[in-house]
C-alpha cells in the first residue's frame, strides 16, 4: 500500500536508513526518483516466490519473514529481516525472479525502490551502480554467514543412540 | 654426612619396621625392577643393573655387588601415593534415598620408600602440587604423603634415556627426603654415605650404627655424582620451551609423531607425574550397595575429551600434542614447573621408541614462529 509523501520527507527517511549511510547527495538524488514509501499490515506479502523481482525494500519498522513452500513440509520460515535491514537482491540478478516469499509478521513500514528504475540508473551511472553493489555485497555476506551458522544446527545435541 | 656400612642396611630396614612402616623398595620381578614390599635386604636387587633405550629395557648382571646399581624401573612411587585403583566411597540404598560413606580416616598404610631417585623426589613434589597443596586436597593422598618416610638414593650412574640434568631434577637429591644414601662401591670399598633431611630422618639415623664421614668419603660421593651428571644419555633444552610449543601448535612434527604413536598410553602409566584419572560407579546385582572407584586414566584414550557434541581431541595427533604440551608447557602455567622430571621412562617404555627429547628438539629446530625483530 503506497502512501503519498513529500519528497523532502522521503529523502530524510532514506538518509537515516543504515543501508544508505555514506551515499553522496548526488546519488541520493538519483535514488529518490525510484523510491516510494510503503506500509504492510501483519500477514501481507511484500514479495511472492516465483514472481518478477521488480522491487527492493529498505525496512524501516516491523519484521518480514522469508518463506518457502516445500512439498511435504508445507510453508517454512527460514529467516526474518527487520528495521535497518533490506529485503531482496534478486532484482539485480537476471532473470529477476524471487526465490522466496516475504510476509510481514508485524506491521511493517518500508521504502520501496522500483527495480527497473534502479537498474537503469545503475547502467547510466556506473559509480552509482558500484555504490549499490558495494552495499548489497555486504548484505549478502552477512546473510550468507548467518545462514551458514543456521545450517550448523549448533543447538542440536542428539541423545546417544537416538535416530536424529 | 655419615657412613653406614653395607651390612647395616638390614638395621635400617628393621628400624623402619619397628616404627610400623611398610618398607617399599626395588626388587626384581618379571624381568624388571619393580617396587614392592621389602622384608629384608635379600629382596633388594644386589648385583643387577638396567640397560635402557628407546623401546628397550633389559636387566643385566653387574660385575660388582651394588645394591642400588640401576636407574629407574617402569613404575614410580605414584603407584603407592596415588594408587591405580582406589575405592572413593561405598553407598547403601535405603528406600528412596542412599547413604554414602567416604574413606575412613586413619586407614592408610604407613609407607617407607627406600631408593627414591632425585628425579623421583621431584616427581613426588610435582604430584604434591596437584593433590596435596593445591586448591583442593585429596585426603587419601595427603594422609599417605604425610606419613611416608622417604629414603633417597643418589644416582652414581646415569641411564641412556635419562635427562635429569636438563630438567634440573638431579642427579643429586637436594631436598624432600628424610634420609639420603649414596652408594660408594669400587676399589675394594663398599659402603653408604648417609645424611638426614628432616627431624624424623635424624631420629631414625640415631638408631643406626653410623660414624661421621671423612673428607675422602665425601669426595668419593662428589666424584660419583659428577660422573652420573656427565653420563646422562639425553638432553632437553628447556629455555623458552613452553613458548616455543605454544607457537608451534600446528607444526608438522605433530603429524610426524602421530604416524608412530599408537595411543597405547604406556607413557602416561609409567610417567611419575601423570595424574589423570576417571571414576567408575558400580553396584552389586541387587543394587543395594554401590561403590565408586577411581582409576588411572590417560589423555590418549579416545573418549577422554568427550562432551555432548562429540570428542574434542579426535586423533592421535592432537592427543599426543596434548600430552607433550601439558608436560612441557601447560604444567608451567598450572603449577609453576615443568611436569617432566627427565626420568626417561616414557622413552624406554614406548613400544615405538618415541623420544620426548627428540620431538621437542625437532620442533625447536624448525620452529614456525616468526622472530620479532
Amino acid at each position, binding site marked *: 500500500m503506497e502512501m503519498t509523501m513529500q519528497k523532502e520527507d522521503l529523502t530524510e527517511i532514506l538518509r537515516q536508513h543504515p543501508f544508505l549511510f555514506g551515499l553522496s547527495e548526488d546519488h541520493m538524488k538519483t535514488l529518490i526518483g525510484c523510491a516510494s514509501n510503503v506500509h504492510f499490515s501483519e500477514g501481507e506479502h511484500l514479495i511472492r516466490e516465483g514472481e518478477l523481482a521488480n522491487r527492493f525494500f529498505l525496512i524501516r519498522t516491523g*519484521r518480514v519473514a522469508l*518463506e518457502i513452500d516445500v512439498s511435504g513440509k508445507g*510453508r*517454512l*520460515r*527460514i*529467516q*526474518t529481516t*527487520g*528495521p535497518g535491514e533490506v529485503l531482496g537482491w534478486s532484482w539485480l540478478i537476471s532473470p529477476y525472479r524471487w526465490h522466496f516469499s516475504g510476509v510481514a*509478521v508485524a506491521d511493517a513500514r518500508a521504502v520501496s525502490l522500483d527495480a527497473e528504475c534502479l537498474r537503469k540508473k545503475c547502467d547510466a551511472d556506473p559509480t552509482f551502480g558500484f555504490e549499490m553493489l558495494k552495499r548489497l555485497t555486504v548484505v549478502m555476506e552477512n546473510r550468507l*554467514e*548467518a545462514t551458514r*551458522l*543456521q545450517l*550448523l544446527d*549448533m*543447538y542440536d*545435541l542428539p*541423545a*546417544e543412540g537416538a535416530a536424529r | 654426612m655419615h657412613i653406614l656400612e653395607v651390612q647395616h642396611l638390614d638395621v635400617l630396614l628393621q628400624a623402619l619396621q619397628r616404627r610400623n612402616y611398610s618398607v617399599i623398595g626395588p626388587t626384581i620381578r618379571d624381568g624388571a625392577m619393580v617396587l614392592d614390599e621389602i622384608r629384608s635386604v635379600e629382596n633388594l636387587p644386589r648385583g643387577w643393573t638396567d640397560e635402557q633405550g628407546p623401546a628397550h629395557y633389559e636387566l643385566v648382571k653387574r660385575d660388582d655387588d651394588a645394591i642400588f646399581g640401576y636407574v629407574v624401573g617402569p613404575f614410580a612411587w605414584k603407584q603407592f601415593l596415588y594408587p591405580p585403583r582406589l575405592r*572413593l*566411597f561405598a*553407598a547403601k*540404598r535405603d528406600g*528412596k*534415598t*542412599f*547413604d554414602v560413606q567416604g*574413606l575412613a580416616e586413619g586407614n592408610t598404610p604407613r609407607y617407607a620408600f627406600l631408593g627414591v631417585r632425585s628425579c623421583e623426589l621431584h616427581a613426588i613434589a610435582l604430584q604434591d602440587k*596437584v593433590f596435596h597443596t*593445591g*586448591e*583442593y586436597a*585429596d*585426603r587419601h593422598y595427603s594422609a599417605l604423603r604425610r606419613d611416608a618416610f622417604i629414603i633417597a638414593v643418589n644416582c652414581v650412574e646415569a641411564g641412556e634415556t635419562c635427562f635429569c640434568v636438563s630438567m634440573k631434577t638431579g642427579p643429586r637429591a637436594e631436598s624432600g627426603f628424610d634420609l639420603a644414601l649414596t652408594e660408594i662401591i669400587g676399589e675394594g670399598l663398599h659402603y653408604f654415605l648417609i645424611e638426614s633431611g628432616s627431624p624424623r630422618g635424624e631420629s631414625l639415623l640415631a638408631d643406626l650404627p653410623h660414624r661421621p664421614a671423612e673428607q675422602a668419603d665425601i669426595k668419593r660421593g662428589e666424584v660419583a655424582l659428577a660422573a652420573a651428571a656427565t653420563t646422562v644419555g639425553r638432553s632437553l633444552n628447556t629455555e623458552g620451551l613452553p613458548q616455543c610449543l605454544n607457537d608451534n*601448535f600446528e607444526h608438522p612434527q605433530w603429524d610426524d609423531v602421530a604416524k608412530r604413536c599408537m595411543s597405547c598410553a604406556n607413557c602416561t602409566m609409567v610417567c611419575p607425574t601423570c595424574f*589423570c*584419572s*576417571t*571414576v567408575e*560407579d*558400580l*553396584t552389586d546385582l541387587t*543394587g543395594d550397595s554401590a561403590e565408586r572407584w577411581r582409576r588411572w*586414566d590417560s589423555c590418549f584414550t579416545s573418549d*577422554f*575429551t568427550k*562432551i*555432548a*557434541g562429540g570428542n*574434542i*581431541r579426535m*586423533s592421535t595427533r*592432537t592427543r599426543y600434542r*596434548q600430552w607433550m604440551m601439558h608436560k612441557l*608447557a*601447560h604444567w608451567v*602455567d*598450572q603449577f609453576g614447573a615443568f611436569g617432566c622430571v627427565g626420568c626417561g621412562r616414557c622413552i624406554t617404555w614406548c613400544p615405538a621408541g618415541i623420544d620426548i627429547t627428540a620431538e621437542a628438539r625437532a620442533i625447536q629446530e624448525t620452529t614456525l614462529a616468526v622472530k620479532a625483530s
Partner: protein
Amino acid sequence: MTKEAYGAAAQQAADPMLIHPVTIRRALWETDDTFTLTLDLANALPDFRFLPGQFNMLYVYGLGEVAISISSDPARTSSLDHTIHRVGLVTTSLAHKKRGDVVGIRGPYGSSWPVELGKGKDICVVTGGIGLAPLRPLLYTILRDRDAYGRVILLYGGRSPLDLLYRVELEKWGNEHDVETLVTVDRGDTSWKGHIGVVTSLFSYIKLDVRNTVAFVCGPEIMMKFTIDELERRGLAPDQVWLSMERNMKCAVGFCGHCQLGPTFICKDGPVYPLPRIRPLLDRKEL
C-alpha cells in the same frame, strides 16, 4: 536434622568428593529433551549457597555423575534448580526421576559471573540453547537490584520455538523488569512471529553503548565465537566480555585432568572466564 546438615556441610569442606543425597521437589519438562529438577535443600543442606555461574556434580545412585550448572535464584536457599539436557546415560536416568526421588549432589564448584563489574553499566547477555540456564541466576541477581544497573539486554537464540527455555520468564523479564529481550530461532513455522536467524543477527536491532557495557556470553562454542567477533566488530573491549566454557568433567576439583583446555582447568579456573584469558585458546583447533 540441623546438626546432621551442619555436619554434612563441614564434611563437604573436608572431602570435596563426598556426595549428599537430596530429594527432588519437582521435575518439569522445559522442551522435549530438556528438563528442570528442583531439589530440596531445606532439609538436607540448609547452608548450601552458590554464586551465579557455578555448577554441581549430580549423582545418580550406582550409575554416575554429571556436571550441571545451577539455574535457580541464589537468593532462594530452600531449593536448587538444575536444567538438564537429556543426552547420555546419567542425564537420561535423571530424566526419569520424579518428585520424591533422591539424587546426590556435591558442590558448588567453579568460578562465577562477575556481576559486580556490571554495576552502573549496561548488561548484555548473549546466549543460545541451554546456555541460558547458567545465566538465569545472573539475571535473577541483577533484577533483584535493578536500579544498580543500566540497560539490561538479553539476546537469546534457540533451535526452534519449542526449544526455547523459560518462556514465561522471558516474557516477564521483558514486560515487568525492564529487560530488552530479543529472542530468535534457527527455524520457525508460520505461527512464530518473532525473529528467525542466528542469535548474532539480533545485534542489528540493538545499539550498544560499547564504552559502558559488560557482556556475558554462554552457549555452544561456535555460537560464542561468532558472538565474540560481533562484539569486537562493534567495539566492545575484550576485558568487558565474560564467557562460560564447557569440557568433560569427572572430578570437578582439578584432579582428574579431563576438563583441561590448554593450561586451564575448567572446573576450578572456570567455567566463567574473562575473554582475554580464553581468546587465544578458542582459536586452537582440538586443544
